[in-house]
Structure formats: structure tokens, C-alpha cells
């Protein structure tokens, strides 16, 4: 277990030094400024819209981080062949993989805390400005939603490591990760749609229904982690739901990383 820590630290530092992080932070800050502009256009539920924008901003910038920084952390080592230097040391490939992943998790946690801090600051100022329209606003729900976004990003990042473990270029890993994200977020709605197609008047073929049902088990159900609207409206969430979602996220992440280690240790390098 010893070599995990240095790899994680190096990965974290490498991620922090990446210039893409500045770009992502600028986008996030701009969107949080936009929050003030849009909130002025809303007649009644300013609080709801402000929370929507703040949480979506954090989620979106986190996605950019996973797509454009996270994938490179793993794939760059392979692209530039620096991995030979690491693997020549007495560490196993699985240790290398897990170490890298832990570094990425650290990066996600830190950036999420920073972005969440900015989001909370904008929400705090808006709630002072429009106190009457923030009646159903609850800080615990906003924090919980931020934590769920973090879990979702960690899961997605684990998948990106899995894709990077068997693809030859980082671009293919990026495309696969994006596609998984799209499927993972819509699979719940799509499944509901093909199982009750009367709503929009379509008749999916039995094959489609089967494919969707298989995909439902194969791909992560990312909409579990989306509690933005509950947070925006201050709706109650059962503690059982919170527990099971956290367990689901952790189990799926560990499973994916285990598979990634397996694939990676069997991979042949040119």
C-alpha cells in the first residue's frame, strides 16, 4: 500500500498545475456572476433559480474537469510513454492505477470544495438581497446536493480511468466517457419512456426495449445523484435514499476501478 500515496500526491499536483483548471475556474466564476443577472429577471422564486444555476455551474465545471483534466492524467502517461519510468519501479500496475485514481479523487474533492464555496457565496449574497423569495431555501440540502455532485464526478472519473486503461489514445477515452455520461444521465428517463411509450405516442420495437433494459444495468444511473431540484425547492429527502445512493456510488466506483486494474495489468505495452 505504501507506493499509493506518492503516486496520488504526484497526480494531484500534476492536475493542479494543469492550465485547463484556470479556464474551468473562469467559466465557473462567470456563471456565478450570471446568477445575479438572471435572478433579477425572475418574479417570484428567485431562490429556486439561484440554487439551480449555482449547482448546475458546479456540476458543469466538475464535468469539464473530469473530461479534460482527469482523462489526461492517466492517458498522458501512456501517450508520452512516461509510464515505463513508473512501472520500472517496484510497484504493481494495480497500485499505479489506484494511486492515480486517488490523486484524481483528491483533485475532484478540492475543486468541488472551492467551486462549492463560490456557489455558496453567490447564494448567500442573493439570499440577503432577495430575502422574501428565499423562504424554502435550506443550506443542508444545498450542501448535500454538492456532495452528491462530487460522488457523481468521482464515479464518472473512475469510468474514464477504465476507458483509458484499454484505449490507445486519450481522445477515444474522452469520447467514451462523454457518451457514458450522456447515457447515464438519460437512461432513467429513457427506460421510463420505452416502458410506457403512450406518453409521446411512440411504439418502440421489442429489441429497443431489451437494449434499453440491458443498458440500464450496464451503465451507471447518474440521475440518482441529481438532487438539484430537491435542493432548489427545499423538499424533504429520506435518509434511506441518501444512504443507498452513497452506497450505490461507492460500490459502482470500486467495481469499475477493480475492473480497470484487471484490464490494465493484462495490457501489453508496445
Amino acid at each position, binding site marked *: 500500500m505504501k507506493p499509493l500515496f506518492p503516486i496520488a500526491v504526484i497526480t494531484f499536483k500534476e492536475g493542479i498545475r494543469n492550465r485547463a483548471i484556470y479556464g474551468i475556474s473562469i467559466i465557473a466564476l462567470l456563471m456565478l456572476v450570471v446568477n445575479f443577472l438572471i435572478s433579477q429577471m425572475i*418574479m417570484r*422564486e428567485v431562490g429556486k433559480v439561484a440554487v439551480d444555476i449555482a449547482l*448546475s455551474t458546479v456540476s458543469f465545471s466538475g464535468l469539464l474537469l473530469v473530461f479534460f483534466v482527469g482523462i489526461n492524467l492517466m492517458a498522458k502517461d501512456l501517450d508520452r510513454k512516461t509510464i515505463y519510468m513508473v512501472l520500472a519501479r517496484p510497484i504493481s500496475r494495480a497500485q499505479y492505477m489506484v494511486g492515480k485514481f486517488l490523486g484524481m479523487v483528491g483533485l475532484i474533492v478540492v475543486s468541488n470544495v472551492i467551486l462549492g464555496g463560490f456557489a455558496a457565496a453567490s447564494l448567500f449574497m442573493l439570499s440577503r438581497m432577495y430575502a422574501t423569495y428565499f423562504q424554502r431555501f435550506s443550506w443542508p440540502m444545498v450542501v448535500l446536493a454538492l456532495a452528491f455532485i462530487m460522488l457523481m464526478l468521482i464515479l464518472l472519473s473512475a469510468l474514464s480511468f477504465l476507458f483509458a486503461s484499454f484505449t490507445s489514445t486519450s481522445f477515444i477515452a474522452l469520447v467514451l466517457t462523454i457518451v457514458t455520461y450522456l447515457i447515464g444521465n438519460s437512461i432513467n428517463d*429513457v427506460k421510463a419512456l420505452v416502458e410506457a411509450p403512450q406518453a409521446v405516442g411512440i411504439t418502440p420495437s421489442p429489441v429497443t426495449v431489451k437494449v434499453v433494459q440491458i443498458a440500464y444495468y450496464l451503465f451507471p444511473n447518474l440521475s440518482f445523484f441529481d438532487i*438539484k431540484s430537491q435542493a432548489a*425547492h427545499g423538499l424533504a429527502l429520506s435518509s434511506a435514499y441518501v444512504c443507498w445512493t452513497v452506497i450505490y456510488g461507492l460500490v459502482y466506483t470500486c467495481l469499475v476501478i477493480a475492473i480497470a486494474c484487471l484490464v490494465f495489468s493484462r495490457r501489453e505495452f508496445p
Partner: protein
Amino acid sequence: MIVRRLFPIVIIILLLPAYLFSLSMTSTQRKMLPLGGEVSYVLPSPLLKITALEFDGLASDFMFLKALTFYGGTLERKERPRVQEVEWRWMYDVLNAATDLDPYFYDPYYFANSNFTWEAHMVKEANTLLAKGNRYREWDWTIPFYMGFNEFYFLHDNAKASEYLMQGSKRPDADPILATLAVRMAYRGNRTEIAIVFLQETLKKTKDKNTRRELGMRLEVLQGVLALERAVETYKSKFAKLPHDLNELVAKGLLARIPDDPYCGEFYLDEDGSVKTTSDLYTTRKK
């Protein structure tokens, strides 16, 4: 040497006006494309929900803002009726989709209630939308309040109105006036009077200057109608018949003068004895 160095600069100087010219030409041509206006097809909500990914709430906010800015744009139009029927339908579809994406979002309901009823004469649609909000926002007394008012004032269904108001009066922080109104409605239809009470309540909660002015004008008209209706009532009980026109009320000394309509219309007596105004509260559509 100098020529070679100046060459790119000259090219750039020549290209800049060409760029600006082509930009303006293309944008004018673009405007002439037969693309259909802003009012177009709205995707069915299940598909919208899928394409919005995890940003359902945000998508709902933007759908609402789309309808809002479109409506705001129509305020500058000169023609009457200001908003076409198709456009009202489109706005309704957009708001319906916005509330499918996030059924808890209050603003679309609020917007629909204030505009689809008085202006668009789409009261049934407004109430269908509000019913959705009523199902989800079970802590909110204002939605059943609006529904009850619409049932009563526009659809003349006192029983249903009273039912909604009762439902609203049981919700947290409900205005005590709801219960009173519900009871009054269950007895008889004092339409104008109740409408005035409703508008006064709404006015108390409204901060926006333009909305306040609009509501104030509406209130003034209804107060005029109420004064006239009362005078007609007195006339009827005195002479056991309807007056020929409203001027007769002034002639018989029942009324000092006929009140002004702030919408620049004129009050008149309908055949069934009810008081109406030619402005019809902004709209020109014939009832």
C-alpha cells in the same frame, strides 16, 4: 523588404471593412429567411426531460424566461389584439413544458394565472396548468386561491370555486380571507365585489411598479362597475324595471356621475342588466 512587411498589413486593412460588410449583409439576409418566428414547435416534455440531462431545473428556468421575454416583447406592439391566439397557445405549451421539467417551479404558474385569464381568455387552460402546481406544491395556498378565483369569476362555477378556496384555506400561512370568501361564494355570486377583494389582496403583496399600476387600473374599473351595479340594483327596486342606459341613473339622482374607465373605454348597460365596459379591460375581443 518594406513592401514585404507592409503587405500583410495592407491585406488586413482591406479585409476588415470586407468582414464588417459581409457580416451585416449576411445578418440581413438571415433575417429574411423563411424560418418561422420565435413561435414554433415545443418538444414533448418526456423528450425535453431526456435532452436536459441533469439540468432539468435549469432548462425549466430558461423555458420560463423564453415565454416571459416573448411576452415582454409583445408589450411594445401597436396592433390589437396585441398577442395572437397562436402565440398564446405557444406560450401555454412552453409553460406547460417548463412545469413538466420542474413541476414545483412557481413562476410559470404565477405568470399563467395573471396573463392567460384576463388577457387571453384561456381560463380553462390556466386552471389545468395551476392544477399541476396544486398537486405538487401542497404547502402553497396561493395556487388554490387563484384557481378558486378563476372558477368563480370567469367560469361561474361557485361550487368548485368554494371547494378550491377551502382547500387553500387549510394550508400553512393561508390568508384568513380565503375561508370567508369560500363561504360567501357558496351562497351567492357577488362577482364584482369578490373580484375587488381579490385584487386588493393581490395588490398588497405586489411590489413591482408596472404590475401595481396594471392591477390598480383593473381595480379602478371594477370599483366603477360595482358602483354602477349598485345604482342599477337600487333603480330596479325603486322602479321595478331596468334603466334604458346608465345616464338615466345620473338623471334620477342615484349616481353623481358615471365613473371613468382608466382603459379609456365607456361603461354601458348590457341587455341582461349587467354593467360592462367597451374597453373590456384592455382586450378588444368581443365576448
